[in-house]
């Protein structure tokens, strides 16, 4: 498919992508008085929507019954607490891609204090709506993905990408 039956956003080639903003909602707070681990991922998933809008594979893509994007794997580092009402800024960097998949990492910052609150590395896969199975990215999405990947190619690889979970042994 070379063009979708809906308008596409103007492509933002800033590196990393720095469009997503949010606020920590009251219902995201748990009994420890901070944003609960699950809701960090809710916040990151909305940033994934912002990235997918750039590719033209967000809500319109599913509403028009063309396709969906599924997450295959996710890794989150929880670097610092955020509280109710805190403003969030989330940046997104493309790490790699192929015909069906996209490997990216989001970084969540406290928007005014500036500190890193969390990171989220993701593997996304394109899914055909009718078969609900993996399928190559449509032409318009691949074209945009290649441009974004090219714009992000010279960014340094974040230290939180490619992490292996474990408890480090002290000598």
């Amino acid at each position, binding site marked *: 498919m070379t063009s979708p039956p809906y308008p596409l956003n103007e492509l933002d080639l800033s590196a990393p992508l720095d469009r997503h903003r949010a606020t920590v909602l009251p219902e995201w707070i748990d009994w420890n008085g901070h944003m609960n681990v*699950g809701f960090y991922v809710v916040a990151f*998933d909305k940033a994934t929507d912002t990235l997918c809008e750039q590719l033209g594979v967000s809500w319109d893509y599913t509403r028009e019954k063309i396709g969906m994007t*599924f997450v295959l*794997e996710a890794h989150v580092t929880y670097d610092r607490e955020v509280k109710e009402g805190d403003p969030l800024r989330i940046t997104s960097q493309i790490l790699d891609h192929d015909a069906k998949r996209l490997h990216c990492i989001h970084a969540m910052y406290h928007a005014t204090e500036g500190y890193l609150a969390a990171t989220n590395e993701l*593997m996304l896969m394109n899914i055909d709506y009718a078969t609900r199975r993996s399928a190559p990215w449509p032409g318009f999405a691949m074209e945009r993905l290649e441009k974004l990947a090219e714009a992000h190619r010279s960014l340094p690889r974040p230290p939180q990408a490619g992490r*292996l979970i474990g408890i480090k042994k002290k000598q």
Partner: protein
Amino acid sequence: MLDSLPYELPELVTHAPLDLHRSAVLPEWVDWNGHMNVAFYVTAFDQASGTFMRNMGLGRRYVDGKLGMTFVLETHVTYDREMKGGAPMRFTTQLLDRDAKKVHLYHEMFHATEGYLAATNEVIVMNIDYASRRSAPWPAPVAERLETLWLAHMTLSRPAKAGRVMGLQKR
């Protein structure tokens, strides 16, 4: 380190792996793709970590008594199969490693009646002192329980999905 906890601890379960946690996919966990959203897998797994911690003696009373909390430092999820609203879930939990302040857990989520593997979650959880909100050694009775559980789990084979590093395998 706390030498004791001011409440009665539950009887310790040492099955290898633990097979204690059950829940169901709530309607509000389902997204526009008609399945459990990626973030709520993390919420569901976090509740399984909560069940693990209660077995160790660290439940709501630990927080309400202003003794301590447990924070997640890092989490890694593999999304293996979709779950629909209302689906019953069964979780197993293996203790992969532990030290004076942290545990490294591995959960598997199964569809409770159909039996298939839906997702896996590796997580590092750290003990936090309530007053300072900083890391602290496990309370003594908890450290003792962790060692008892470790003896039961240390001989389990390491799950194939544990210790993953994300990336696109080039063909």
